[in-house]
């Protein structure tokens, strides 16, 4: 799934990482919202936009991509990569863009509610 590393390099406990199971789809959508990418590029971009704090387990990225494509949130086409190899590039569909907005709003609501609850005395 998502392997979490804090900036100091110490991995978070597995229980914390499992909390992020549902967020992989959202992160993939977010990564693709910045432009079309192949599977490897998606993983790289997620790491990049999270400041290397989030690293997607490489194997689990692809079923995620296939599921999103199956749901019509992303679409793919074969093209030539930067090193002249045949690669499958994914890009967001209109439905995917809408879904990303919804997911972002949900996530922000959840995060702010959790912070509020934690700060309550």
């Amino acid at each position: 799934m998502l392997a979490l590393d804090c900036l100091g390099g110490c991995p978070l406990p597995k229980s914390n990482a499992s909390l992020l199971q549902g967020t992989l789809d959202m992160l993939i959508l977010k990564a693709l919202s910045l432009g079309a990418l192949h599977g490897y590029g998606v993983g790289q971009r997620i790491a990049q936009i999270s400041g290397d704090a989030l690293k997607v387990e490489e194997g689990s990225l692809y079923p995620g991509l296939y599921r999103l494509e199956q749901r019509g949130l992303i679409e793919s086409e074969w093209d030539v990569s930067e090193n002249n190899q045949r690669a499958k590039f994914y890009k967001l569909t209109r439905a995917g863009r809408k879904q990303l907005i919804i997911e972002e709003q949900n996530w922000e609501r959840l995060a702010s509610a959790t912070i509020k609850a934690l700060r309550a005395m």
Partner: protein
Amino acid sequence: MFLIKATKRFICAWRRPDEMVHEVETELRFHIEMRTRANIEKGMRSDDAQRAALQSFGDFERVRDNCCEIRRSLPFDSTLLRMGLHITMAVVAGLAALWAVNVPHHNFTGVMRQLMAITVLTYLFIVVRRARSKRRHNGEHVNGVLANKSLTSDMSDAPSAKIPAYDEQGRTPVERVFKS
């Protein structure tokens, strides 16, 4: 548009499974190759870089099978489709039955037609029975599982536990709970 594309993909996946597997493998191999290159750029030796890339990727075959399974699944909830299919089958069976009753059976052609109708009915009966028993065996329909899976991105499948109908003392699971 999406449904047309997805249905086309679904049909291709069933019609040409080898091609689909090849496509998935090509994509996954590309990933491993890119990771290997990145490892080499970091200063690793070629062999070590490839080994590390394979290791960080995880179980290649499992990922491939997982992707293929997703590709082979219907892109929408198939409950309505299945319902439509069952209704069509029931209508066909009814028409066949009506035909069989009304066809005169005093000549050879009539008897042959009746036999044909009986064959169709039997076949439909077997298909329905098989579908029902399969669904009962699985406990839930295939697309339901996929829909649930799509909510999370966890690849690990829940371990399936088989509960025997009777234990060594001849008690059912319910009896075991209440008598223990």
